């Protein structure tokens, strides 16, 4: 496996983003026992929060430096070029999805599922479906994350400019937008119905919070975040969230949660990044980073390298993960869907993600050597990253 460490890079970002990619892959395979391992089953937040936060962090880190060196216009152009790449990747995944349902449409005709086959009606009107997909309004199952990124990154240049001038003001603007979104139910329309599954107007808070942390915010809150009371508060909140989550899974325990609490707490809204989810992510980060410092010895060990490699090529590996989840589920339905197969598909999928990430790293290293010392601008992987 190729070496991964440009000096000065905070490998924790790559590590946790790589892990988040694996978790998203596991969660995207329907009826997969292995997804019991993923964090969404043990608290309010899930891999999406980790992913959005780190992407905001790395985007600010990479494009912030670009903005210092080459100015607002050039940095913005680079951000928009990245947006275009993500858009193309999304359309590619959409084609894969359409191929799968087209196959099922022509091969599967069980009279029990006449109703579910109605999903194939999208094939009958490609004129509408294709255009709605290109407008990012029609987003099939599990294809909501990339459109969120496209919008978050597309709107990022002015926010980055603002945070560089006044971090506090930038964060305040973001929080205000989040509050107004909740107050007035702002959302983006989807096709054929409803709204975006991830509301960018709400999720931008986490992205901007990540950017704010990258540009000095993390150091500013460090004394506070590392204090003992805050640590124990975070632990207490994680335990609380864990206990509440268990009542969703263990039958008849929900009755032990007091009514006033459920009335106040539910629903815990994923679409609009519920504040309980946001708090859960912050608590999780507080506790984790206490045990995983920047110079954590294991970060450079071969044990962590697979996840770090994946995290360093997040756009490619994310897309591969969505594709593999489709393919894995397809294999389970066609061949066998026992627990053994679920474990096999999960393990093989992660192995494929690691192998492709290693291949990309190898290729980039080879290319870099061929071009000699010429400085290529750092490429921000899926809204940030390879810096």
């Amino acid at each position: 496996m190729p070496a991964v460490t440009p000096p000065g890079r905070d490998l924790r970002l790559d590590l946790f983003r790589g892990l988040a990619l694996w978790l998203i892959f596991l969660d995207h395979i329907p009826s997969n026992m292995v997804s019991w391992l993923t964090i969404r089953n043990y608290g309010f937040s899930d891999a999406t929060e980790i992913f959005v936060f780190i992407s905001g962090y790395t985007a600010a880190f990479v494009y912030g430096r670009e903005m210092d060196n080459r100015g607002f216009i050039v940095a913005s152009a680079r951000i928009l070029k990245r947006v275009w790449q993500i858009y193309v990747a999304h359309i590619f995944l959409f084609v894969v999805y359409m191929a799968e349902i087209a196959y099922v449409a022509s091969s599967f005709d069980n009279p029990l599922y006449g109703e579910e086959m109605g999903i194939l009606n999208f094939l009958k009107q490609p004129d509408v479906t294709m255009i709605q997909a290109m407008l990012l309004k029609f987003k099939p199952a599990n294809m909501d994350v990339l459109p969120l990124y496209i919008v978050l990154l597309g709107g990022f240049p002015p926010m980055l400019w603002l945070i560089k001038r006044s971090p506090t003001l930038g964060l305040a603007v973001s929080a205000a937008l989040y509050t107004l979104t909740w107050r007035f139910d702002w959302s983006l329309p989807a096709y054929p119905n409803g709204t975006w599954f991830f509301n960018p107007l709400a999720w931008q808070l986490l992205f901007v919070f990540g950017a704010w942390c990258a540009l000095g915010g993390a150091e500013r809150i460090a004394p506070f975040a590392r204090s003992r009371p805050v640590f124990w508060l975070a632990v207490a909140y994680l335990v609380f969230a864990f206990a509440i989550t268990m009542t969703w899974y263990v039958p008849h325990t929900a009755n032990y949660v007091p009514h006033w609490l459920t009335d106040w707490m539910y629903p815990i809204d994923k679409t609009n990044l519920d504040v309980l989810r946001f708090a859960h992510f912050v608590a999780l980060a507080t506790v984790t980073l206490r045990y995983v410092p920047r110079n954590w010895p294991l970060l450079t060990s071969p044990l962590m390298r697979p996840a770090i490699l994946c995290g360093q090529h997040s756009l490619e590996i994310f897309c591969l993960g969505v594709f593999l989840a489709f393919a894995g589920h397809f294999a389970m339905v066609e061949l066998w869907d026992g627990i053994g197969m679920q474990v096999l598909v999960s393990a093989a999928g992660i192995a494929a993600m690691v192998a492709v990430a290693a291949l990309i790293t190898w290729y980039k290293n080879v290319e870099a050597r061929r071009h000699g010392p010429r400085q290529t601008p750092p490429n921000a992987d899926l809204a940030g990253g390879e810096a």
Partner: protein
Amino acid sequence: MKALMITVMTTALAATLATPCPAADEGGCFVASGIVQADFSLPRVAAAIARKQLNVAVLGSASSTLPGAGGAQAYPARLQASLTRRLPGVTIKVVAHTKARETAAEMVTTLHQVLQDDKPDLVVWQTGTVDAMLGVDPDQFQSALADGIDALHDGKADGVFMNMQYSPRTDSMIAMGAYVEAMRFIALQREILLFDRFAVMNDWNEMGVFDLSATTKKIDVAERVHDCIGRLLGRLIVDGANLAQASNTGAGNMDTTHREIH
């Protein structure tokens, strides 16, 4: 998306831990215990059984029907057969009101009409698939369910929710999760019985009771699935009525859910 994220996986876990629990009139339709369980009572059904005349309305979309003559093999008709076997001496009438491609919100209108015209003692409301396929805002889906429950209260009828079918082939194409959770959440919050068809069929697929991903144009498996749904739904309804009776006579403890009426 909504709070009570009792996922499909719960069921899978429960299924691996639990043993099948046979009871009268289940005709080999085994399902892991706890999946079909009366958590809430059906007082109006209990009263109707006492009057020896039980009227049930089934409100549903296309998955409440089967191709073929007169719907005799679809689960509403199988429910009538099951209730007739379970409740000897009681006249059972099950009327199905099914319409393809109706969302929950659209079905609320039908529900008002049915409550007014037929005055059923019990309404089985099957919904969710169409909403999931169209991507209806889960909030709107939830409020449609809540409107339906209000209508049931006004119409003085008991209600049983029925959620989506589990369909392995389209599992990765239709994002059911938020809608499955929404129905479970509202059912629990508003104390409405839920026939968790999604969990039941997932259990069947997992345990190999039925091969739900088979590529077949034949109707026989579909008919057996509907027969089993009818039987288990019958069991749930009778359990709910028993629970109402038990709490009336002051012996209201949860164990009575498992007692058979005959």
